[in-house]
């Protein structure tokens, strides 16, 4: 069923808010808009930017979360990207990583490809799916207060945590981070592993 609830949050405000006090958290971004959002909030070696592999952001983060159990891992991805990897909600729910949080920047559109509507504007509730998969904490956020309340969950609550943030479709400038995959992984691994990155 199509939803008509008005959405006011701006994606860039939301992402820069989330990343403002990021501490030593490691961030994995889904292809397209959330990669640009993270870049716009400020490039950082602890960001792993995906430019492809649609549907793979959450699972990349799970591998990382298991390898780095003392670090907090946060996924920032789009609703379309998350929908392509719905099975990974089950996989992550069953794996139950304490240090993993997923934040979907949900504009109810495939923004990158021309703003076609996704399932999330037609009754599909990603947070409910994550809850059904056994995530420890799940919520859908529609307001500024909501996002303030959700941020501590992303960073601190025992996971897996899932937050779906409804954002509007206002146009935002393109901000592009590193593009070369080998450079992105080399820089990220060095930030996480130090000299061992080049073993």
């Amino acid at each position, binding site marked *: 069923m199509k939803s008509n609830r008005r959405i006011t949050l701006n994606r860039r405000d939301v992402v820069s808010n989330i990343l403002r006090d990021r501490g030593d958290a490691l961030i*994995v971004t889904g292809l397209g808009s959330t990669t640009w959002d993270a870049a716009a909030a400020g490039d950082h070696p602890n960001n*792993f930017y*995906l*430019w*492809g*592999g*649609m*549907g*793979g*952001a*959450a*699972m*990349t*983060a*799970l*591998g*990382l*979360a*298991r*390898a*780095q159990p003392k*670090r907090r891992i946060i996924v920032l991805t789009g609703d379309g990207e998350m929908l392509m*990897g719905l*099975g*990974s909600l*089950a*996989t992550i729910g*069953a*794996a139950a990583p304490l240090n993993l949080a997923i934040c979907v920047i949900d504009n109810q559109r495939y923004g990158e490809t021309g703003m076609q509507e996704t399932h999330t504007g037609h009754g599909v509730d990603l947070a409910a799916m994550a809850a059904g998969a056994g995530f420890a904490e799940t919520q859908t956020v529609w307001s500024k207060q909501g996002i303030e309340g959700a941020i501590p969950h992303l960073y601190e609550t025992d996971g897996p945590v899932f937050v779906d943030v409804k954002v509007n479709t206002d146009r935002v400038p393109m901000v592009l981070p590193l593009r070369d*995959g*080998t450079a*992105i*992984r080399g820089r*990220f*691994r060095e930030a*996480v*592993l130090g000299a*061992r*990155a080049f073993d």
Partner: protein
Amino acid sequence: MVTKNKKPVSKWSAQVFKTLKDADIAQVSYVPDAGHADLISTCLADDHLKTTRLTTEEEGVALALGAWLGGERSVLLMQSSGVGNCINMLSVIQETRSPLLMLVTMRGEWGEFNPWQIPMGQGTAKALEDAGVIVYHVDEAGDLTETVYAASQIAFNAYRPAAVLIGQRVVGFKDWRKK
């Protein structure tokens, strides 16, 4: 039906398990195949390995990337049909030039009874090669451990995706005349 319980672990599975340990594998992810049943249960019983059950094989490709970004080596276990589920995610491994070790038990290639296994089984090696994966095919049980070890070295030391296809001759096929 083949009985699954309380059989001794097949010799090749035990050897491959030891090889994976020698190669410093810390994480194992899988979608089950009957051919991998012994190896999976051995991995699940090991206290030091972190195992992940997947809903689809492409999840394991992304998981392997994440594990390596975090400093851990992993292996992905699947049946040949599962290779078809991985193709686009393999582009991420290629573009980031990251290691990936896959052990693929073959169907649809030797004495196969189920015709539905033929299309993907016959296309497995080609599909992997087209996706940039280095492919080793093992038809002699005696070659398996050495090949798995060599594949792990090229994967993790040369930062490349490598797959070992474990032939249906090694895994053993079900002879449907002997019900």
